[in-house]
């Protein structure tokens, strides 16, 4: 597909996938504003690129969101160390109402994992991807996905037990 035709398909791509990509970005970064930036940037990067089929375009967008979120998470970790109590983000009203205490505990534990472990778990258990698909999205080997998933789950289990 020529870039101009690709450009014409972007609105459809956006309408079809924006919400899910935003949710993915929120799950891996845990910050709505950051997530919006990442998805916006992913679409901006796609703009003008010649990707010939919508599946490839979606894969490109998903990988871009994940790659951007890793570097953003590293920066956020440093920033949060120096954050004043006043600047802390509190849960949105939607989160407050919807999440139960045990679900919140799981998400709190997830937040403490390394970015790649967190991404592997989100793709595996929220996107329902198999190991090969997760590996493709994260740009790593299937073995690495297995390792990130296993370690992530183990760490999650330990943290949840510690909070009981």
């Amino acid at each position: 597909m020529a870039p101009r035709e690709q450009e014409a398909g972007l609105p459809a791509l956006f309408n079809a996938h924006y919400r899910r990509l935003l949710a993915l970005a929120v799950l891996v970064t845990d910050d709505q504003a950051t997530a919006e930036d990442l998805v916006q940037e992913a679409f901006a990067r796609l703009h003008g690129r010649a990707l010939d089929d919508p599946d490839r375009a979606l894969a490109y967008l998903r990988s871009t969101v994940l790659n951007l979120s890793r570097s953003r998470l590293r920066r956020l970790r440093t920033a949060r160390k120096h954050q004043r109590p006043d600047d802390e983000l509190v849960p949105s009203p939607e989160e407050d109402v919807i999440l139960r205490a045990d679900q919140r505990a799981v998400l709190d534990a997830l937040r403490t994992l390394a970015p790649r472990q967190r991404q592997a778990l989100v793709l595996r258990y929220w996107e329902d991807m198999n190991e090969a698909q997760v590996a493709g999205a994260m740009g790593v080997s299937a073995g690495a996905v297995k390792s990130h998933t296993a370690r992530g789950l183990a760490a999650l289990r330990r943290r949840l037990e510690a909070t009981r």
Partner: protein
Amino acid sequence: MTDVETRLRDALSVRASSVPHDPYAYGAIARRRANRRFTRLAAPIAAVAATAALVGAATVTVRFPERAGPAGGGPARLGVLLENGRALVVERANPRGPVLAQSPPEYGEVDDLSTADGETFYAAAGRKGTCASVLFTMTADGRSTKLLDVAGAVTGLAVSPDGQRLAYAVAVRRGTPDAIPGCGTIVDVHVRDLATRTEKVWRGYLGVTPAQHLTWSADGRYLAHDGVFDVSRIDTTAPATRRPKAFLDNFRNPYGGGLCFPRAPGYLPTGELVVLVDCENAGTDDPTTSRAVVVDPVTGRLGRVVFRLPNKLESHWLAFDRTGENALVGAGKSTFRDVNTRYNVVYWWQPGKQPRRVSDASKSWERVVW
């Protein structure tokens, strides 16, 4: 599936369903705590004291702020505003602060203002009833010095960061249609060496590119400006023989809807060029939220979003300070087909924070310089 896996799947699903899906939602703003009673009271007092010390009590009248500004860290003085020929200090606590300098009545209405040091203001004013303009300086002690008469309407003005060169764009009559109604058809960009009084002129911009919002890179090499929904850049070290082309034109909104319009470029101290991008919403010509986006001035490719305005106002101008730690953005409510803005406000941005509104709604906000 283990218990942890089941719980994880459940929590992720519920969390994902709670994500607001408005593409232009700004959850972080609503979620920030705002319990800063002490700084809310202390900030205006500190701002007045700092400004009085800065500009000298003998030359300006310091007014007590009428209302408290936004709380938090940052400079008390945010920039200088051009309003009705007066250079006003924009304070966090009082957007229409003390008058730093005022144009003499004989020069007419001031169209643009620029300063490198915050003390000497370069101004362009149109001669009433004609298309001629005059460039002059004004200072806080009330002095005004004429630099030159210009045979045309000045559409933009910017003094270089080192204060040595003055860039200005002039619409001159060389054909049709007019870039400035009744005053010019083609825009020339002049870069004047203030010490030697020599000029380099890039001639022959198309009439539809009036060259507004001239802005210098921190190293004084590049001069960026916007036109009618496009952005161009001039390398001032290159010969002035070729007309620079716009590197970023309006483009189709990747989020759906109509077009996106880049405007009002600004340089970060890192050398990155930032433009404000407003996009049309699907089905209407109302603007979406304005975003300040890094753009590659060679390829025109958009990069990271530096910040977004926290509501759906159309942005008009952007000014970064020399540290890149502060920016002011003028924004208003209008449509792309109605350039008469009805509602203008100024936002102050700092890295890592959402832009905060520092001004009241007004019809008269014009450009701010640092």
